[in-house]
């Protein structure tokens, strides 16, 4: 543990920003955007400077600073949607509505909307439409222009039977009840430690250790934060868990609160997950009714409050410290670590911050025991994992699988394999962050160690499959663009480096390759990995470096012969 003393955070003045996004959203609902006069009033009401309002309002793309067009269409252009033809969708919509004036209609590319299993997707305002064709999108936009917005009608599948759920629909919150009947907090942490449960957000930090550190921390105030901001392209498993196992997530958070002594929990959810927000809110309301939440939980004398915080938007908010900054009403810029959130988290107080899946598994493990969890898994790995499979597969979706399952199995048996007549050429085991692996490495398995050894990672289990016809350089460029678009801009390497990398790789896809590019790319990659403040910049080189490593002939074809084997680049390529 570091001996670092944290910078002064969480002072009374800083809390003046608390809840500012709810206020700004309210204004935007009334006016359609954030008029300057209203922002001034927000500053006056809160006793802060106007720059503090503007600096956050201008940071989050969800806020409009000028009156937007009547219909604003955002088409997702990231990995899974890109593989499923979002470029064509975008261009098709653009052509069809080119005559619509700016006041009526704007079309913009958007970052991953979290509908990777139903790509391509788009949003109009707070409505999301997926499995789109140009014709279907056109109809939706037509209706919106007429002032009759169509509600997206994507009904989920029937609730599946999931091994993770210890209750099977019967008597939920039993773990909590048992713990309250015979409080054995240290033993509970012991169970989690024995289970070797790791954080499921991607970093894989042991959960038991994290909870114990917060439990041992001496503080008048502590927090439990659930990170439900999954925004990485291909990552859709938390949406699935929140849809089908909301009670496990909530119970996990309450238990974490009781174990660590935190009285307040915040579930941070991305704003594109409105349906899940409603499901969770209903569950939270039910818990308050049944006295599972609130003061004096189940007459135990212990209390815990839980609320949902809807993200003002952006992938960077998923970075744990950036997420805390957002809750505090600031620009979602990652903090320099150490200090870590376990000691200096939300409002500078000790904070447990875990992924949705981690809280769900924690509940399951406390119900079924560490031995049960360790007995799950195969091929030398243990535990369960929710993975999303999307891209070029027949049945994209989310699956609950034993750790150790190979990627071949995941893609072919769970997700139905590549579309008929097509061969898989590569895949990303966990969205852009894991980099791309070639088809020859499909036999790797869902195992932290195996994947680390292969130079990749299990990550959040966002498997994106690329079949024949995909240009891997184009996929790398797509991933780098995602990071460029989502960079918060705080530190130099990521803010400037991401753009320079996009410039360079765009050049490669258009026939502009310079001999100095390769060494320069390596230098830039080293700089990004080593000097960026947070994971976004550190991982930024992974997509292109993995493609250079595993798909070198394709790269050479582009840079030496100005040829794209997949026929994607060069001609007609938009800069």
């Amino acid at each position, binding site marked *: 543990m570091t*001996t670092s003393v944290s910078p002064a955070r969480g002072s009374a003045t800083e809390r003046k920003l608390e809840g500012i996004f709810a206020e700004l959203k309210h204004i935007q609902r009334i006016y359609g955007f954030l008029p300057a006069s209203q922002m001034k009033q927000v500053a006056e009401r809160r006793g802060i400077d106007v720059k503090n309002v503007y600096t956050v309002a*201008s940071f989050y793309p969800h806020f409009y600073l000028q009156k937007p067009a009547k219909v604003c269409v955002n088409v997702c252009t990231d990995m899974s949607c890109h593989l499923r033809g979002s470029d064509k969708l975008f261009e098709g919509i653009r052509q069809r509505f080119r005559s619509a004036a700016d006041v009526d209609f704007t079309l913009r590319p958007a970052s991953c909307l979290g509908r990777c299993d139903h790509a391509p997707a788009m949003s109009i305002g707070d409505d999301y439409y997926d499995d789109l064709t140009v014709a279907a999108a056109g109809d939706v936009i037509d209706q919106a222009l007429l002032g009759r917005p169509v509600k997206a009608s994507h009904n989920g599948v029937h609730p599946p039977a999931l091994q993770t759920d210890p209750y099977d629909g019967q008597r939920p919150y039993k773990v909590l009840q048992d713990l309250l009947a015979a409080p054995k907090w240290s033993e509970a942490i012991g169970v989690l430690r024995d289970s070797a449960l790791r954080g499921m957000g991607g970093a894989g930090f042991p959960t038991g250790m994290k909870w114990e550190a917060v439990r041992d921390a001496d503080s008048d105030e502590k927090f439990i934060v659930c990170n439900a901001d999954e925004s990485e392209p291909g990552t859709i498993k938390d949406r699935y868990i929140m849809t089908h196992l909301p009670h496990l997530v909530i119970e996990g958070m309450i238990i974490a609160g009781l174990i660590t002594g935190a009285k307040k929990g915040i579930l941070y959810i991305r704003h594109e997950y409105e349906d899940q927000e409603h499901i969770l809110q209903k569950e939270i309301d039910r818990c308050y009714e049944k006295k599972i939440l609130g003061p004096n939980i189940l007459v135990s004398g212990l209390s815990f409050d839980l609320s949902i915080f809807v993200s003002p938007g952006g992938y960077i908010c998923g970075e744990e410290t950036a997420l805390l900054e957002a809750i505090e009403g600031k620009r979602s810029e990652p903090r320099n670590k150490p200090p870590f959130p376990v000691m200096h988290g939300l409002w500078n107080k000790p904070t447990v911050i875990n992924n949705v899946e981690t809280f769900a598994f924690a509940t399951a493990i406390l119900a079924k025991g560490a031995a049960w969890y360790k007995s799950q898994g195969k091929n030398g790995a243990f535990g369960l994992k929710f993975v999303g499979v999307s891209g070029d597969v027949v049945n994209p979706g989310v699956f609950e699988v034993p750790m150790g399952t190979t990627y071949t199995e995941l893609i072919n048996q769970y997700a139905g394999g590549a579309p008929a007549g097509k061969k898989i050429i590569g895949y990303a085991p966990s969205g852009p962050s894991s980099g791309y692996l070639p088809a020859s490495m499909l036999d790797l398995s869902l195992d932290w160690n195996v994947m680390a050894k292969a130079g990749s990672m299990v990550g959040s289990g966002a498997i994106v499959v690329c079949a024949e016809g995909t240009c891997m350089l184009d996929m790398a460029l797509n991933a780098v663009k995602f990071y*460029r678009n989502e960079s918060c801009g705080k530190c130099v390497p990521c803010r400037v480096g991401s753009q320079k990398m996009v410039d360079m790789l765009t050049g490669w896809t258009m026939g502009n390759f310079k001999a100095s590019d390769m060494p320069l790319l390596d230098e830039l990659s*080293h700089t990004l990995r080593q000097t*960026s403040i947070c994971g976004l910049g550190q991982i930024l080189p992974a997509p292109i470096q993995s493609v250079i490593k595993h798909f070198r002939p394709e790269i050479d074809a582009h840079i030496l012969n100005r040829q794209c084997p997949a026929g994607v680049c060069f001609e007609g390529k938009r800069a």
Partner: protein
Amino acid sequence: MSDMVHLTIDGMKVEVPLGTTIFDAARMHDIPIPTLCHQQNEGPVAVCRLCVVDVGARVYAASCIRQCDQNMQVKTNTTELQAARSNLIELLVSDHPSPCVRQQHSGDCELETFAQLYGVSESRFAKRAAPRGQDESSLSILVDHSACILCDRCIRACGEVRHNNVIARQGKGYAAAIAFDMDAPMGSSSCVSCGECMVSCPTGALTNKKVVGQHLQEDEGLSLDVKELLQLPVFKGVSGTFLELNRGAIVKRNYKKGDLIFREGDYGSTAFYILEGTVDIYLASPQGHVDTEGTGNGFFSKLRNKLKGRADHQREEENLIRKFISIDANIDLEYDNPVAKLGPGELFGEMTCMSFYPRSATVRAETDCVMLEMLRNVLDVMQKNKTFRAQLELNYRQRALETHLRSVPIFSTLTSNFIEHLREEVELIRYAPGDVIFEQGDTADAFYLVRIGFVKVTEHYPGGDLVLAYLSKGSYFGEIGLLGGGVRTATCSALDHTEVVKISAHDFQEMMATFPDIAEKLKAVSDDRIRENKNRFKQVSTVPVDQFLQQGLMEAQSLLVLDLEKCTRCDQCVKGCADSHDGVTRLIRDGLRFDHYLVATSCRQCRDPLCMVGCPVGAIRRKNSLEVIIEDWCIGCGVCANNCPYGNINLQEFALKESGELFAQAGEAQKQLKKARVIRKATSCNLCHDHPEPSCVYSCPHDAAHRVTPTDFFADMVGQKHLKATD
């Protein structure tokens, strides 16, 4: 836990107090670590990443923020670290306008210095596609976003160091930039021009803006020590370095009792701040307007231009008698006795300094005086200084607000009690040139008085905006919206550096309720204006307005129309005009042609009456009937004549005895001309109203010249044939 931490930096064992950053620990032991974003007087943010060091972890640590741990092994200078730093600089250089303004001026841009050191002055990365632009709105600081590296030093300087809290980041990612308030131009933001941001900036993104080509003669005045300046309350909170850079723009001057500081009508570019002593500020020109009168039989020779004051010669348009003359100082002069005193802590000459208007009054030292004379960049610093603002506002509230209000005839009956109340309530607001005060269609929420500068009033018309008025100091606006439907009927914007007094709708309504007579009068004025606006709208909507409006003809009171089929171009009309006005013509036989008519240049009540811009004493104005009137206290500076694009305003010269009296006879003046001082008064065509016919018309031997009303003329034109403009 021990209070000391032991660690190794580049092989050297060091011991530092707990909580010391690696950067500081290294510095204490003379191990230099490069940085761009870190400054000793600001909290660390670790955004430039140049100061990264290897602590044996997965990634490098930013030494400026990372605290030393027990037994830490730190390397500050490995090949890999150097490569990363070099690469970071190369990234920044690719978007940097080398050499930036700072590098050009003083050769000390920190980024460019590092670039040379690391040999990466030429970046291999692609340049930024779209330039990020400059913000030149501040008078003292130039903002060049292209040179900004987002080190956040200015943000912390403005917030942590000076507690002004104006600057923050805006936007996200590669598009992120620094912004003032809500991305306002720096000049119209709440920036107080303390200069701390500029002093903190490592590059040419924030640099000191010198007033080009201007440097106060230091030999005449006493060059000032920055320390001395900083001790003055009006420079409290200003960065010393910033003042140092502006030394040439401020001098201290000593005046002896009776010294003339400047004369009304002089040109200048400075403002004065009184440190010690008092001055007299007054109008030296005799008051009166130029009147042409006939003396009996005959025509030309008997006409005489005379200066006539209000007492001798009441003009019909002077039904609104103004008791005060507004000048370029925080005080108004009484019409009957235009002299005032200013003492220590007072500022005068702001408008001359900011917008280069002629001096509005004569200033003479009443006692021995010490004054600061400054150029606009320093004045800007002072005006934005919180201490000075407070003092200025206090002075204004205590001394000027009352006369200012009372100088508006309608408000002359306000009770002292109510003015006392307003003193506490009003707000003084500054606007930069072009800033919109309110927009036509906005909700009316306040009433305004002009304190400094000019406010342009425009109204939307089919085919473009029409300037209704330029309001100068002493004018008011905003009452129509408050009295009428609660909506602004026109757009008001700042024409130059403008300051207005804002009286809230609440206080305004209270005033209306308390003083029904004022309400009634205001209502009448407002109704008049609304009616005129409606008429004008009807008028301009029914004819091909574009050309009429553009040429400013439609609203003329009277046009001189020459029938070109009859005119022999003998110029008798011009001569006639000159003869009747002491040899100075007010007419030029040139202008716009419609069919076979020439509309000669004479005042035409332009769509955009530029003549009203810049009068330092507010002596030229439009009556509600739109006719131009020049007030008695015209100081003859000639700004209006220069501004009139049609040459329709002329200056009449009068010789003045040393005593200040006018010579009764022109001839007498000529005899003594060497001793006499010439004063001037502006005039525009008065239609020779003392005569049965204007002299130009009278003098035409061919019956080609006619004075007609525009409506008649154009109705005739439009009715009979289609208007043929100037083809």
